[in-house]
């Protein structure tokens, strides 16, 4: 990844050893941002001053003989739905424009404690609803590989920031593929950990039973390191699992000899671009050459994932987004009564996609339709998990495309919500099941744009998932 500069582990090693200063590293990255940010719009807000202060603190610690931590001096970009104390957190929505949270998300605190230097807040589809970052109230982000194309979404700004070398690391959130799909379209590594292994405290909620925070990086090893830093139990999140994140770094060189890999049959045919499917088959061959036992496996219920997801996620969103009513935070449109004020505020503050999902969710939960829509979708969720369980009884990891296509042109799908939703057909089942999955860059499609291969694993299966990803990464060298 020569276009993006040294990876995070190399930077941290040099800073800890006193060979480079965090200040130097930061200025190098701010220089790259200055050169290309106007063209890409990866950020909603840059925090140069705070970053310079944080880098100086890292350098002071090194000078004093202290260890600033495993991410010493590493610049990191944060999706703008992660709360940062005193720093604007907008979710790319007018309704939160100018809001400065009174606390930090746990992942933000943990990154800082590990010596990382936050450089800014990245653009996203409003409230993380979308697959192209075109639903941002502040304008779209562009793909660094081809600026006429989308970076994917919803964490498009975080993916583009890493692909453009603005920061070697960033954080995103993934409710239905919002880390993995943009990682694939931007040619970087993106990880959605097991539900509950990374604290959601301070992540602005979209679909609470689906949301998970995870990293973007240029290497599999960097992504593993971030998971180890941000993961593990947090008493501030009642859905946080009472355990540490599995140790990944010691296993990255373990290889895949004897590992059982299943290629998901339902994700290799209809709706998948043939050049993308061909890259997944190449990945499967690379794993077989490295000693894995590779075969095709059927996970039938995943074909109903999209339908179930677009009932479950909007239902949860309609409830979570009820809090934006102009009372406690964000913007207010004044009106004579509280009810009129709330309606005027929400009508002016939310964009179309957010309104669509709030209405869809309200409908799916409403009396007379609950059993037909939301209740049914929850049962389908069970079927999906059971089919995954059957597949994992005889396989350690599964393989599929991350996205059905490479990056598509800006504007191509924005007027047709259903077509846009189909981007997430391969990533959604993982969130419904609560499992981990990651996207690994694996060459390019016929158009020369990046293709991502998705590695899926059962809950807490991160070690096998990262071993597989590391072998795939190595097979391209």
């Amino acid at each position, binding site marked *: 990844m020569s276009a993006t500069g040294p990876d995070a582990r190399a930077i941290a090693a040099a800073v800890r050893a006193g060979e480079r200063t965090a200040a130097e590293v930061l200025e190098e990255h701010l220089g790259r941002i200055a050169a290309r940010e106007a063209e890409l719009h990866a950020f909603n807000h840059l925090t140069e001053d705070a970053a310079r202060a944080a880098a100086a603190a890292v350098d002071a610690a090194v000078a004093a003989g202290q260890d600033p931590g495993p991410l010493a001096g590493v610049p990191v970009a944060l999706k703008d739905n992660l709360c940062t104390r005193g720093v604007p957190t907008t979710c790319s929505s007018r309704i939160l424009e100018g*809001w*400065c949270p*009174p*606390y930090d998300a746990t992942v933000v605190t943990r990154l800082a404690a590990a010596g990382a230097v936050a450089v800014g807040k990245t653009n996203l589809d409003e409230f993380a609803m979308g697959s192209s970052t075109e639903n941002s109230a502040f304008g779209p982000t562009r793909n660094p590989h081809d600026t006429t194309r989308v970076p994917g979404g919803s964490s498009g700004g975080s993916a583009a920031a890493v692909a453009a070398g603005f920061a070697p690391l960033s954080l995103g959130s993934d409710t239905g593929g919002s880390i993995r799909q943009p990682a694939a379209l931007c040619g970087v590594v993106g990880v959605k950990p097991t*539900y*509950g292994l990374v604290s959601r405290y301070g992540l602005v909620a979209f679909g609470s*039973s689906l949301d998970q925070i995870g990293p973007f990086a240029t290497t599999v090893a960097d992504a593993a390191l971030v998971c180890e830093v941000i993961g593990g139990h947090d008493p501030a999140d009642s*859905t946080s*699992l009472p355990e540490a994140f599995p140790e990944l770094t010691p296993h990255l060189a373990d290889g895949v000899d004897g590992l059982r890999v299943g290629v998901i049959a339902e994700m290799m045919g209809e709706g998948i671009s043939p050049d993308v499917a061909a890259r997944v088959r190449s990945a499967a061959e690379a794993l077989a050459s490295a000693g894995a036992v590779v075969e095709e496996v059927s996970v039938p219920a995943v074909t*109903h994932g*999209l*339908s*179930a997801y*677009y*009932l479950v996620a909007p239902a949860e969103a*309609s409830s979570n987004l*009820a809090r934006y*009513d102009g*009372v*406690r*935070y*964000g*913007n*207010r449109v*004044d*009106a*004579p*009564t*509280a*009810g*009129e004020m*709330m*309606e*005027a505020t*929400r009508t002016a503050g*939310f964009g179309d996609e957010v*309104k*669509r999902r*709030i*209405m*869809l969710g*309200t*409908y799916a939960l*409403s009396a007379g339709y609950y059993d037909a*829509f939301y*209740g*049914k979708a*929850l*049962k*389908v*969720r*069970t*079927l999906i*998990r059971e089919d995954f369980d059957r597949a994992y009884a005889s396989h350690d990891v599964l393989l599929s495309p991350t996205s059905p296509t490479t990056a598509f042109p800006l504007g191509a799908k924005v007027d047709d*919500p*259903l077509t846009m*939703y189909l981007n997430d057909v391969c990533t959604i089942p993982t969130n419904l*099941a*609560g499992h981990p999955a990651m996207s690994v860059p694996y060459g390019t499609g016929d158009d020369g744009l990046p293709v991502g291969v998705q590695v899926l694993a059962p*809950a807490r299966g991160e070690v096998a998932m990262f071993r597989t990803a590391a072998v795939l990464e190595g097979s391209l060298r």
Partner: protein
Amino acid sequence: MPSSEPDAPITSADVAKVASLARLRLDDAELERFTHQLADILGHAADLETLDLAGVEPMAHPIPLVNVLRPDVPGDLVDRDEALAQAPAAEDGQFRVPPVLGEAP
């Protein structure tokens, strides 16, 4: 035009109702556009009708949800003034809103 069919998955009257429940105001053009789009999405979800879901337990969450308790000891809390400083309007340590009483439900 799905919204005019009697067996449409969602009608413009339904959309107007949920918009009102969700405190969103739609003009006529928005109502028509959203009705079409939501009908498309719900129409796609009709594949769920083909599944035999008898005896299948619903799954609302990936992990078993239990109450999480901690000792009742004051911790490091969000500062009240800092939180109120971010509100659209505040007075005497409280959020200020327009009149609530006297409205239709």
